[in-house]
């Protein structure tokens, strides 16, 4: 695991920063409830593509930044994204070979899991329940998986990240 063999770490960090920016980007009121989980999508992609570089630790740290940015209790998204990273790596060899549509459904499950864990924690600390539209971001994440996937793959090949 020497530095010479790794390449393009900056590109990975850049995609995460863009995802974090999109997470707090001001949106009109109605669209705020539809905002897909950008950090989750980027994390799933990198865990699937480069499981030896982006893993549970990266997911955890990205989640901690999400906590800080969104004003959640520290550790809420960190835990959820660590679990998402773990499962993605666990099944990355299988999911990588899926056709894009099937991959999108796997992504739906993973994103919903992120939301479920986050919701579970926020309920645990006494926040009120959420309406059904709470789950829309996961659905939208599934719908935009194909473009996100091809874009991130373009970045990975363009910057020869390995």
């Amino acid at each position: 695991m020497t530095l010479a063999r790794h390449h393009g770490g900056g590109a990975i960090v850049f995609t995460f920063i863009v995802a974090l920016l999109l997470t707090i980007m001001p949106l009109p009121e109605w669209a705020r409830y539809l905002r897909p989980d950008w950090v989750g999508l980027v994390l799933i992609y990198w865990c699937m593509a480069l499981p030896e570089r982006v893993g549970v630790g990266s997911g955890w740290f990205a989640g901690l930044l999400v906590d800080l940015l969104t004003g959640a209790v520290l550790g809420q998204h960190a835990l959820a994204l660590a679990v998402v990273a773990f499962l993605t790596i666990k099944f990355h060899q299988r999911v990588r070979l899926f056709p894009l549509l099937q991959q999108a459904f796997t992504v739906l499950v993973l994103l919903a899991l992120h939301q479920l864990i986050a919701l579970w924690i926020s309920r645990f600390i006494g926040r009120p329940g959420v309406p059904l539209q709470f789950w829309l971001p996961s659905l939208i994440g599934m719908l935009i998986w194909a473009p996100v996937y091809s874009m991130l793959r373009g970045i990975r090949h363009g910057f020869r990240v390995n």
Partner: protein
Amino acid sequence: MTCHCQTGCTIKLIFTQGPSIATRLILFAALSVVLMVMDHKYKSLESMRAGLSVVVYPIQFTMDAPGTLTDWFSESLSSRRRLQEDNESLRTQQMMQQVQLQKLASLEAENIRLRELLDSSFKVGEKVLIAELLSVNLDPYQHQIVINKGEIHDVYAGQPLLDAKGIMGQIVHAGPYTSTAMLITDTSHAIPVQVNRNGLRTIAIGTGTINRLELPYIPNNADIQPGDLLITSGLGGHFPPGYPVAEVTAVQHDPGHTFSQVAATPLAELNRSREVLLVWPGKTTVLDTTDKPPVPPAGDADATATADTPPDGTPPAGVAPDAAPAAETPAPAAAATPAAPSRAEDTE
């Protein structure tokens, strides 16, 4: 452990990853749980949160920059005529407010004199600072905002925040350069208020809807009606007394319930204001143009005289002059607890 193969290094990597990912997951999960417990239960991570908020500050700043730039451009490119019109209207407005302020100064002095007769202290002016909202979105299910003032401007957690129309909320996390504030409509926020008309004290609780507060502890026979102005009562110690909070919109008496269902609309423009005011209760004003009225020497003798003999009918000024209804509300007991963001214990 070294790689001997010429081409397929990925094969090796799968088997030499240090601690297995399951171990890592358990490690990080445990760390998360520790963080959550410390952050939520003991609130002992404020310094760490403040430190880490410096890390995310560039991200917030980058997101805020386009909006700030647009504002700046539109302001510097706006036509001369519009600026003149703005200037004109602001001048008129200032004139009107100056006139009102002249009256206020004498009223303020009179109020202080009268309160001294009742032997109570009443701070009028507070130190205030204007802050701006960063145009970033937080969790849509929590009513929180980020402002561009932090600990270097003496902002502290629990500090009241208001706009030109009324109370907006309070600071929950103060970082070095930015702070997060919770609005009064957040579901975990409660604010001690009183009805301006008769001094009836109660608590206004956030509903999670941006234009609605609820007053759940009003007995059926209490004197409250739509149109009543709710102001801060100052109980609880977080908010300075006397600032407008909300206007009662609906009162529903249901004989089957102990309490009426009372709804109110916040007066502050919670989802529109870009400039907000931070208040330091207890500190003297800096924006006040009039001098602090000194203790009037004429009323001095009277004040001491009345203090010795407490008037029987008049309650001390801290207590509002309300009669039986307020005594029945559980509000005073509950109001003693500060309206801290952790109201989780009493709900749910």
